């Protein structure tokens, strides 16, 4: 594939997203905003799964922490400090994630880690649903969209589609940060741990510290994007931390492809298109959606990103063990740097 052709698709996607409010129905615009946050959330999850080889089934807990922090502070009138609110939410999510990781990663991995994180997220959800000042089961509605002051100029994000464009920019920044981490030295270290932790330890990598770092970063990014989501949806409920929400990044990653950095994002977009396209098939939409997803998983085991790579001729070269999938134990890196 030529460089121009490779750039055409992401450029078109960005243009499509940014221009959406100019020509699309407001329902589609709202869905696009939700999908952007879901996509970044899925990318943060894949930093753990695709890069580090750890599967968390409770990632929605961190998302809900960020969403609630943002919701409470915005309702309390801290809208002018919204950028700091997002950073603070990310830090709170990272701190909780670090605490959970300190305990969980020492004691468990694989399925045990998955179940432990799931249980902790459920604990958080139940606690939120019984906390009256956080709205119990009905959550916190009427979250105001903030006004951002930039020196002499202030931007009212509640006006028109301003928050949508802000969301585009903020999700872009978070995605860029995740890309930088994933493709930098730390990302390479994580991939070496995923492929062979013992070998990584032998060459001097502190495996536990790096796993904990990835877990903390994943939780922090999940919470930050949760903080962006709250004023977009203008309501947060305990269900944001539910098991169903935790399975979303897993689903998006499987659809899009765990072997690609962009896979979870592609999966989120594909799912949104399918879900919206089947909205009028009341009673049938789940069957149609499920069938399409099943077909993708069966016929494109590397997800849509893998299928695209094959289509574009950039074949995934099998490693010496014949394993190309993320999380696939030992051997040559399945995730090629710079590949998408």
């Amino acid at each position, binding site marked *: *594939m*030529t460089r*121009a*052709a490779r750039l*055409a*698709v992401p450029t*078109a996607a960005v243009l*499509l997203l940014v221009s959406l409010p100019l*020509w*699309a*129905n*407001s*329902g*589609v*615009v*709202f*869905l696009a905003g*939700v999908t952007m946050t879901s996509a970044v959330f899925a990318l943060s999850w894949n930093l753990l799964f695709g890069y580090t080889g750890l599967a968390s089934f409770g990632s929605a807990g961190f998302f809900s922490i960020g969403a609630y922090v943002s919701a409470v502070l915005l309702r309390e009138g801290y809208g002018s400090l919204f950028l700091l609110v997002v950073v603070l939410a990310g830090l709170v999510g990272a701190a909780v994630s670090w605490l959970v990781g300190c305990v969980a990663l020492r004691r468990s991995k694989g399925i045990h880690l998955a179940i432990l994180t799931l249980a902790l997220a459920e604990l958080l959800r139940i606690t939120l*649903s*019984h906390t*009256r000042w956080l709205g*119990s*089961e*009905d*959550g916190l*509605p*009427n979250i105001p969209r903030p006004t951002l002051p930039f020196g002499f100029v202030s931007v009212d994000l509640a006006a028109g589609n301003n928050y949508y464009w802000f969301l585009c920019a903020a999700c872009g920044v978070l995605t860029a940060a995740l890309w930088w981490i994933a493709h930098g030295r730390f990302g390479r270290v994580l991939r070496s741990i995923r492929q062979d932790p013992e070998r990584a330890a032998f060459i001097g990598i502190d495996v536990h510290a790096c796993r904990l770092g990835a877990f903390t970063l994943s939780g922090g990014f999940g919470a930050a994007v949760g903080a962006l989501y709250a004023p977009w*949806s*203008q*309501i947060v*409920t305990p*269900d944001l931390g539910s098991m169903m929400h935790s399975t979303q990044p897993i689903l998006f990653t499987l659809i899009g492809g765990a072997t690609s950095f962009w896979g979870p994002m592609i999966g989120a977009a594909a799912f949104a298109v399918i879900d*919206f396209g089947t*909205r*009028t098939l*009341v*009673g049938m*939409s*789940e069957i149609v959606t499920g069938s399409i997803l099943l077909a993708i998983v069966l016929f494109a085991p590397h997800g849509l990103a893998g299928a695209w790579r094959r*289509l*574009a*001729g950039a074949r995934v070269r099998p490693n010496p063990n014949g394993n190309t999938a993320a999380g696939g134990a030992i051997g040559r890196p399945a995730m090629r740097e710079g590949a998408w």
Partner: protein
Amino acid sequence: MTMKRRTVLTGLAAGAGILAAPGILRAQDSGPVRIGLITTLSGPGQFYGNHIQTGAEIAVERINKAGGVAGRPLELVVRDDKGNPNTAVTVFRELSGSGIRLFAQGTFTALLLATTPLLKEANATMVMVGPQALALTHEAFTPNAFRLGFSSPMAYGAFGALMARRFPDIGRWAIMMSDVAALRDIARYFEVGLKREYAALGRSEPEVMNPVLATFGAADYRNQISTLMGSGAEGLLNVLQGTDSVSYYKQARTFGLDGKFKAVADSGNELSIAKAMGGNTPRSIWGWTGWYQDAAPNPVSREVLDAHIRRTGDGYPNWYVGVAHDSIAVLAAAVAATGSTDSAALIPTIEAGNTMGCTGTIAFRKDDHTFVGDVTFVRFGRETGDPKGWRVFETATLPGDRFVEPATPGKPFG
């Protein structure tokens, strides 16, 4: 393989073509008067959503048969909110973006709290179908929304009062409840109504025991039933919902709980319990309902019941059918009266309205747009002589305005 520029451009054009499909791009109002119905048609809430859809469809059928609204046919545009606030907002924005200004939505509070703040900006008017949560007409009040549902103080305060009148000698009440925050209000206002009525009757205040709790969705209630059996209470309020209730009543029967209590009150399952359990229905249960045709018969109620029987063969429709019908009827009547779908015209018309529906004359309190109508109760139970295995023994109606909480729009109540 090298990707040619033409291939890329063709792909982009095809993508743009798909996105430009009708229904995604903005559309304009034309032809029929369209009402968007947003309800839960998949997942655990489907039980309620199906009844709401049926009631709304019956209303549209009746109105169109009578000539439509101001000479235009009425069209229902149904969307599934999937029990998810995001989906509710997406479909609301989709429908409002396509020019729809009239909405009926129900019944989960969190989903209504997600969409009602959007009504004003969309110049839309909504009737909320059946919700009970106080927030909707208090701290989250929006003038563009009307609650055609029974607030917890009204429904359960009246229920407590009815039980006090019917069973003035009971000195101790027990409560069986799922450990869900939203259900606590039911027990709370039942207790308030009960104690106030005892006081009004000049009786000493009854003891209301702490609720016996079960996990939501539990399958085994034997421990809880044992606790209730040994409680010494003579009255029992069940605040379990849906299938939890069926499991509970089935297990309670084997314990003989049926004959242990002088009074059994059920908070929200009404005749669904009897329809599910048939000949195993408990001996006698008092249940609250939002609509029961024989309690306060009127011609609209009769027509809706007949239409329901024609559609489903079921002569005991869930109360959501009646309330959903009335929600559509209110919107249609307001459009007919004003000839407009503009919210500025519709809101005062609905506030002053006197539409006749299944639930009688539909009246909303002007201050906070909460429904103030009669509160209906049915007593039903096992009946060996009846082919269904159960029957309704009697009904009772209390005036809702006696029990409805004070209006505090924009501020929390209590």
